[in-house]
């Protein structure tokens, strides 16, 4: 009630300021984890770890910005390939990828070396990071899922 009163009580400019303040408060409220359940803590941990691993193993080629480089290294920031091929992406992180590959309608054909020393947990962390950065918003990617996918990678490539 008092908000309605606020917004209608005084001059336009003042109202505008209050409105902005209100928006700001709403934004803050929506940023903090909505529920304090284990999931969002886990998500945070995965994301933070994933970012570090990404900077160690991936950003050389794909860049910190995820923009890639020309037609040599495909972009991750916006990638229909990523959106449509979660399983293949999990596999290529570990085992690498070569041959033709189409991202956003452009053809790439270079070798991406895999990082076989990564554990399933680390791959889940990297996947969580890249799938929730830039334009992506897929939420947590669980280790169990990664483990399951990795068992079926053989023969892909």
């Amino acid at each position, binding site marked *: 009630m008092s908000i309605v009163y606020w917004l209608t009580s005084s001059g336009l400019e003042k109202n505008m300021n209050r409105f902005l303040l209100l928006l700001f408060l709403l934004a803050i409220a929506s940023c903090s984890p909505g529920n304090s359940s284990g999931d969002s803590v886990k998500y945070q941990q995965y994301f933070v770890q994933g970012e570090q691993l990404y900077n160690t193993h991936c950003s*050389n080629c794909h860049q910190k910005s995820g923009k890639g480089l020309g037609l040599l290294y495909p972009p991750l920031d916006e990638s229909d390939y990523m959106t449509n091929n979660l399983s293949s992406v999990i596999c290529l992180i570990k085992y690498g990828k070569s041959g033709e590959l189409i991202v956003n309608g452009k053809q790439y054909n270079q070798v991406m070396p895999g990082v076989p020393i990564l554990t399933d947990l680390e791959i889940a962390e990297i996947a969580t990071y890249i799938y929730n950065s830039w334009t992506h918003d897929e939420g947590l990617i669980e280790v169990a899922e990664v483990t399951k996918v990795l068992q079926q990678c053989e023969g892909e490539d």
Partner: protein
Amino acid sequence: MSRLILLVIVVGLISGCEKKVKPLPIFGQREVVNGDTVYHHIAKYQFVDQDSAIITNDTFKDQIYVADFFFTSCRTICPIMKTQMLRVYESTAELPDVKLLSHTIDPEYDTVALLHDFARKLGVSSDRWHFVTGAKDSIYKIAQTSYFATAMEDKSEPDGFIHSGAFLLIDKQQRLRGKYDGTKEEDVNRLLVDIKRLRKEYE
């Protein structure tokens, strides 16, 4: 009071003018021959670029150029170097006297065809950015003795080579005028400023 202000302004202006831009250093040994100073300069070379064109010192006559050493299959620092070199390429697009020269240090693998493909995928034009290959020994030798850059084979390294990520700035007299870490954005910013400074010397 107003005189005092005037004085301050004048003094300020004078001291401001005195802070002249220092010229870039000239790297390497120098000798005095018949009273003239002879500076270290890039030795004679002949390589082949991505269009099968012969590239020699004459290609860069009256040109400033930036050189580096890399190879296409390198997964460690080269992608970062190429990202940074692309920035140099883009930000010197309007400068007709600035060129780029990337030498492969893996000439057995990096054939002309492969370099051609690499340049195409990077989206750059061969009249401003030459990717060259040649005899391995000549490339290693010129890296070490002319450009003071590290480049050698080492099977124990993850990529099979030891090489520095250096970008080298060469002036129109083929002298080495600057050395930058091509894997660091800030250092490449310094290079971009130095290219402008170097061009001023020829105005």
